């Protein structure tokens, strides 16, 4: 069975390093890459009436922008390097969504970056990397 790498990607420098790492491993092992971009979203947040009215339009815009700005350029460059690549854009809690995708798509490994910036908010709420270490359903590589 060939390796399938799920890469959490948000366009940041660390995410790029994580993706580069995953691409190099996939090339070496003959595996494929699934890039997942998660837009932070809670179905229990509170919205104003105007936000509710415009939500569907906003969502369409957000998906469109993420696809055009983030995913499309990656797809062509990685595919050009000869590695099979797929992309997904999801809404939800970042760590939980990455795990769900990994399980559903039968991934064998996960790769994410971390910024190493242990600010107050990540101390209180935990970071994506910290959560994944604890709950990832498959081996998870964290790229500094």
């Amino acid at each position: 069975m060939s390796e399938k790498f799920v890469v959490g990607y948000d366009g940041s420098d660390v995410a790029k390093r994580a993706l580069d790492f995953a691409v190099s491993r996939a090339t070496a092992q003959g595996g494929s890459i699934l890039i997942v971009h998660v837009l932070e979203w809670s179905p229990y947040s509170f919205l104003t009436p105007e936000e509710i009215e415009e939500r569907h339009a906003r969502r369409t815009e957000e998906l469109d922008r993420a696809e055009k700005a983030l995913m499309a350029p990656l797809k062509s460059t990685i595919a050009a390097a000869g590695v099979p690549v797929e992309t997904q854009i999801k809404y939800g809690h970042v760590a939980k969504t990455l795990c769900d995708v990994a399980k559903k798509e039968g991934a064998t490994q996960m790769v994410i970056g971390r910024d190493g910036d242990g600010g107050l908010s990540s101390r209180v709420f935990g970071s994506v990397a910290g959560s994944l270490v604890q709950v990832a359903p498959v081996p998870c590589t964290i790229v500094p």
Partner: protein
Amino acid sequence: MTRLVPTAVLAVFFTVFAALSASAQSIDETINGIFASSTGWFVSLIFSNFPGTSFPWIVGWLVVAATVFTVYFGVIQFRAFGHAIALVKGDYSDPNDAGEVSHFQALATALSGTVGLGNIAGVAVAIGIGGPGATFWMILAGLLGMASKFTECTLGVKYRNEYANGTVSGGPMYYLTKGFAERGVGGGRFLAIMFSIFCILGALGGGNMFQANQAHAQLTNVFGEYPGWITGVVFAGIVFAVIVGGLKSIARVTEKVVPIMGVIYVGTALIIILMNYDKIGWAFGQIFAGAFTGLGVAGGFVGALIQGFKRAAFSNEAGVGSAAIAHSAVRTKEPITEGFVSLLEPLIDTVVVCTMTALVIIITGQLISDPATGNYLLNEAGTAIKTVGDTSGVALTSAAFSSSIGGFKYILALAVILFAFSTMISWSYYGLKAWTYLFGEGKGQELTFKVIFCLFVIIGAAASLGPVIDFSDAAIFAMAVVNIIGLYVLMPIVKRELNSYWSRLKSGEIKKFT
């Protein structure tokens, strides 16, 4: 440039008020006088009694409708209760639709529009006039109202307008036109226009002036007397910043703080009730006895019943049609699911929150009764029950809470201001939807309404409670007159949706995702 115009208008307005501030109190009186005399006829029309009785026809209209829907849909409020909870929890939400408005969000936003001063001040008005017995009728009206809400919110989603840019507009004006056309019944367009007019008045009345008025009452209660127009101008300025200036951050903060305040309010009420646990049985005794005898209140048990029904309808807005506007933007393939979710609204609003307020007022002994007869004593005018310290409205609630927990009046003042503010923001949206239905979508039309809305904040804060509450009630009930006619005509459509959905749910065709 377009932004400058309303700012200039408001600036002129502020200057005029500042120039007249020397005669501040007389401004309040002038506004009050003009307001009372110009709205009196409308109030009398809506609240006229059935011939030969002292029972307002409008209260009968609402309760009969809620009862009809309850029977017609086979006590849907209890049958679908569990399913409604599952929907709100997201058990039936497709994970691929994440990022769209969830049932929870639609419910929370609709609730922040209805949970407001009706629950704090309105209940105090009802108990003050109708006695503890009003609570019983209020709870009953709340339970029945769940069926009305179910009907209107299902229709709101089913007949909403979806525009090419992905935004949606829904509400009674749309189901009255489209639904009536589908059933081949005439007059839909006429009713939709009537509804829109009343909705604008309701937004300016109950959704605006009543809120500003009671927020001011609470502020003077805490900080001492000062002219109402000052509160009005400050409130109007903030509302203006949010709805015209697009300062979404303020609205967002309120949307987050309001649910927390709601929890604090109910929690505190529960603590006070538990502190007086020995009186709980007595309080319920008063509620039941008062419901059927009146215990000496003005108008006897009918007086208690009218007050209870009136306050319930004003607080949870079931049958009024406003919730249909709020709920219509949810993303769902099945309109009926939003109907199920909306069932929970009168339950939370009236049966839980309003009842808490009522119990605290009763249990803390704010109402003075005659120890010999057990009947309540009336004030000198004979219109309301005598209270400790002669309070009414929000001041009565504040006195009740403060008698047990000293500093609570400051927390309550904050809660009142936030509730008032979030209700104003919600109603400015309902009013705006009705306004654009009448005058067409467009920046200019929207701005006109928003500026008018802000001016009414000032009027509401300056006028005295009597005329404001009368006009607010009348305008909101006028919406119900039109809306409920529509619900009667369209209820077979809801029934068809219900039967289809329910059979698919039972057969397992509609599955849980979790």
